[in-house]
């Protein structure tokens, strides 16, 4: 039995709609509530670090414990992650970082055959 059969269409659509509505309101929250009122300085100081506070934590377990290898650390993926960050820091260019990361990933996967 597939995952979809286990849940059935009504439950699947309940999940999709709940996620859709919930996600929209998370995104709309401050835009809708605050409008054009300026935020205080301390709030802005916190918000400067939003992206660097969330994204590294989101990505760290994916790098160290990838699902594709059953949660085992994998040399190709670790090397690709290091290359992505290295190129990104050196060039400050997202595209260059992606190319560097994917090239390393495929290179090491190919080398390790």
């Amino acid at each position, binding site marked *: 039995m597939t*995952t*979809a059969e*286990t*849940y059935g269409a009504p*439950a*699947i*659509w*309940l*999940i*999709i*709609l*709940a*996620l859709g509505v919930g*996600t929209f309101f*998370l*995104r*709309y929250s401050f*835009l*809708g509530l*605050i409008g054009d*009122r300026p*935020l205080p300085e*301390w709030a*802005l*100081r*916190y918000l*400067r*670090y*939003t*992206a*660097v*506070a*969330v*994204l*590294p*934590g*989101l990505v*760290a*377990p*994916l*790098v*160290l414990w*990838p*699902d*594709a290898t059953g949660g085992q650390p994998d040399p190709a993926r670790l090397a*690709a*992650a290091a290359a992505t*960050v290295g190129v*990104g*820091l050196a060039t*400050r*260019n*997202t*595209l260059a970082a*992606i190319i560097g*990361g*994917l090239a390393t*990933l*495929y290179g090491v*996967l190919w080398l390790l055959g």
Partner: protein
Amino acid sequence: MTHATPQHTGPTGPETTTAFWRGVRQGLPFVLVIAPFGLLFGVAGNEAGFDLLEVMGFSVLVIAGASQFTAVQLMNDHASTVMVILASLAVNLRMAMYSASLAPHVGPAPAWQRALVAYSMVDQVFALADSDYRLAPKQSLRAKLAYYTGACVPIVPLWYGSTLAGALLGKAIPPAFALDFAVPVTFLAMIAPLLRSIPHLVAAAVSVIMALVLAFLPAGTGLIVAAVLAMAAGAQTELWLARRRAQQ
């Protein structure tokens, strides 16, 4: 007034056009990451047995890759419907912070425009807009919205299209392509250019360490706690460095 600036030219002023195309240009590199990301989600949805409408329902109505993957992963693990919804929404809590971050810039726009900004607030578009508004905070509201629209052009339709392609191609893509790792590479490539000061580095380090330490918590929860601690660490480091400079 002799000091009129081009910032306040009308709806189709050159500043607006320039901002729109700057958004398109800076959004274009993400084609290389959105395409595999969406493709991968289509494949994952197809493998879980969802029909085309359901897979597209995720990408069009939720339009948040990480939480969509979380939902499919938890459903494959037979989590309860309520837990699937809660954990996947928790992954998206960061978007409330994005919303707060963009509010000072696009807050004055009419509600329907803010609703469209909210709908299309994916990680990449947020990262681009946040960076552009910080580099040029004096842009007019129209220019800021034009930039946002431009950034969405290469990213949002491609998210739908690549999901569709993935769902249709299904299992035809061999695992040797290691598409799973396109997701972490995307995130890392977005993070590295952000690490431009000591407080940013401190915040990133706290985020990584706490997310790993708290990984045992239910999906998404550890990340939220880690993010709040990391934001506080970044803000406090900034304050501390500023005070130390002031004393010298």
